[in-house]
């Protein structure tokens, strides 16, 4: 962990535009348009929007998986996608099927080694993380025997390896049952207390209401609202936030149509 953290935003996105070419001779289709926002160290941000709003594309650009057509993103002051930026990030992709013939311990050993965690520390940390995500006793089972929810728990464990300063989670509780969701919410609550910055996209507004300090609402690749989570939005465990989310999105759709 070499990055300087003091004073600089954990994540700073400035005029980010992301586009894809659907085919070799087809024009670029833009899915994120001039997006700008900033996340301070220790903040927990919910990145919300309907399907196709550009959440995953933004996250991919921040991770360096796609090149931005315009604008920039910086992680603790380092260019997004650079090796130095990635030293500070723990990332959970939206639905990944981990190596079916490896065990959770072997999978974490692979990711931890790539992260540069020393061997002795890695083993202890892996065991601890598997316990925290509820996979204790499954350390030596091959992943082909794991359900989707269990795979997602392993995904969270790999994201937490090496105690990253910024945690980026794409659809964090996707495929996880209600008990598992509560468990993961508690886990993220513990991570939040350590001062880790968490930036996550989710369609589960309950967990957003309980965990987030601020929400960013995306529609059609544009940031349409940015709001601090106050008591009013947290009330009714997600239902107030759901009302706010649905109303804002409907207004955005109407504005776009007009």
């Amino acid at each position, binding site marked *: 962990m070499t990055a300087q953290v003091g004073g600089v935003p954990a994540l700073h996105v400035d005029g980010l535009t992301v586009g894809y070419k659907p085919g070799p001779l087809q024009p670029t289709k833009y899915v994120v348009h001039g997006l700008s926002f900033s996340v301070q160290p220790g903040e927990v941000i919910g990145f919300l929007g309907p399907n196709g709003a550009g959440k995953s594309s933004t996250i991919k650009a921040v991770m360096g998986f796609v090149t931005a057509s315009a604008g920039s993103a910086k992680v603790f002051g380092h260019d997004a996608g650079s090796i130095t930026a990635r030293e500070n990030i*723990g990332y959970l*992709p939206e639905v990944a*099927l981990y190596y079916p013939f490896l065990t959770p311990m072997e999978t974490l050993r692979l990711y931890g080694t790539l992260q540069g965690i020393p061997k002795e520390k890695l083993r202890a940390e892996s065991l601890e993380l598997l316990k925290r995500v509820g996979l204790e006793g499954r350390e030596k089972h091959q992943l082909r025997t794991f359900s989707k929810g269990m795979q997602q728990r392993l995904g969270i464990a*790999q994201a937490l390896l090496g105690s990253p300063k910024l945690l980026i989670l794409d659809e964090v509780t996707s495929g996880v049952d209600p008990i598992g969701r509560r468990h993961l919410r508690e886990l993220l609550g513990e991570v939040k207390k350590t001062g880790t910055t968490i930036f996550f996209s989710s369609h589960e507004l309950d967990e957003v209401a309980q965990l987030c300090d601020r929400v960013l609402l995306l529609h059609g690749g544009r940031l349409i609202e940015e709001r601090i989570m106050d008591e009013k939005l947290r009330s009714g465990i997600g239902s107030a936030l759901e009302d706010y989310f649905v109303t804002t999105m409907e207004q955005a759709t109407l504005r776009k149509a007009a």
Partner: protein
Amino acid sequence: MVLRKLTIWGALSGASILESIRRKDLWVAVILSVLMIGAAGMLGRFGVKGLETFLKSAALTVVNLLSVVLAVIFTARQIPEEVSRRTVYPLLARPISRFDLLFGKFLGAYALSLLGLLLFALIAFGALKWFGLGVGTIFWQYLFLRALILGVVCAVTIGLSVFMTPQAAITISLLLAMVSQTFSSAVMLLEADSQQAGKLFLHGTYFALPQFNLFDLSSRVSFGWTTIPTVTVLQLTVYALLHIAAWLMLGALRFKRQAL
């Protein structure tokens, strides 16, 4: 820095090897090679003329064929499988470069291919010994050159696999490996009747594509010929390393710019 790179490549290749071994891909090919070489042996026992040459030729053909097919199949799925399972994301979320990922995967596939080659060669060697046939020193040269060419096969396949679907990469790699002899002969025949521009194009194509047949000593082993000069082996080693580097660089350049 070097140690860090070696650790990264080792971790990536180690995971690939472990997964493939547990998937039991190699064992299917081993059983197949035992059956094929055994069948050739049985056929030889029923009175084929020139038994020794026939058996050696059959055993080495099985080794050549299966080792190349396995190498291509192992390698072609390395990167596309990471992408389709979406495990490429947590890998590239780590502080490693895309070249590290490509090279680590190449090493894993190459190590598995070498393991396959050694197993097939051991089976062939054992079978020939069983039939009371010696292979001579040239067999070891043959094995070394096979090991080198498998490196080229893996590099070509992994390079192609980032440009196209795994199925297309498998088809093209196998075609390159299998029709190499025919291609070289065709180029030489065409070159004799070509104009200056045509000659240049044919020369370019000949040197751009790896000539797999240059590395095939199986006929020499079958006919019990003497070893080839060490300098030729060295030249072929350099030739193979250059092709491995070129194909890996080509794949890495494409993979670096690829949107995931």
